[in-house]
């Protein structure tokens, strides 16, 4: 049993269409870095210099990691991690 990582539709092009992939237990940022090794490009889309990008939210078992330990939140086997990019725009300009 591994960590279950749910990949959002826009990033499934990096996982050959897989909606769910296995992740390694440890901190969230380590898990992202490991995902990047198996799915090149994933890392830079989710994080920058060790921090989760402003327009991406990460949830561990439905809990927003901003309210946990952010990038250092620890995940273990059986946990579910969801990566959810925001949808944004505006009227400005």
């Amino acid at each position: 049993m591994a960590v279950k990582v749910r990949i959002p539709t826009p990033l499934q092009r990096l996982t050959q269409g897989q909606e769910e992939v296995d992740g390694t237990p440890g901190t969230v940022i380590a898990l992202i870095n490991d995902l990047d090794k198996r799915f090149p490009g994933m890392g830079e889309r989710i994080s920058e210099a060790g921090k989760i990008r402003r327009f991406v939210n990460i949830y561990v078992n439905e809990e927003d990691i901003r309210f946990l330990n952010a990038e250092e939140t620890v995940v273990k086997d059986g946990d579910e991690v969801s990566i959810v990019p925001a949808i944004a725009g505006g009227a400005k300009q």
Partner: protein
Amino acid sequence: MTQLLIRRELLNEIIDHCKEVYPNEACGILAGRGGIIKKIYRAVNVDDSSVTYRIEPFQVLKNLKQDGLEMIAVYHSHPHSEAYPSLIDVERASDLDSAYVSIYVIVSLMHEEPEVRAFATSDRKVREVELIVS
């Protein structure tokens, strides 16, 4: 997609939402099955702004999945400008990493009568999609 079909009552739900949060921008999801819009999901504008919107769609995506529906388009309002994608709209929609869908519905509240138009926006190109209300 060159046409987007929507029932009058669903379109009214969108317009009502936009009017309720005016002067801020409203935003949400048009969801359905097989390209047919079945339900409107209101979203919270995390920016809480009158010039930008941002949906953090974790909860709404979960609700969609539970209801067995898929995202067809995203809507938002332009409280004080035309129903046409702004530069920031085009920019964000062209970012493949957050492009769940390519159809955007924009509601302008700048005139007495709300104006609603739909666009396919991707790769920095904007094409109008015919909105057919039944």
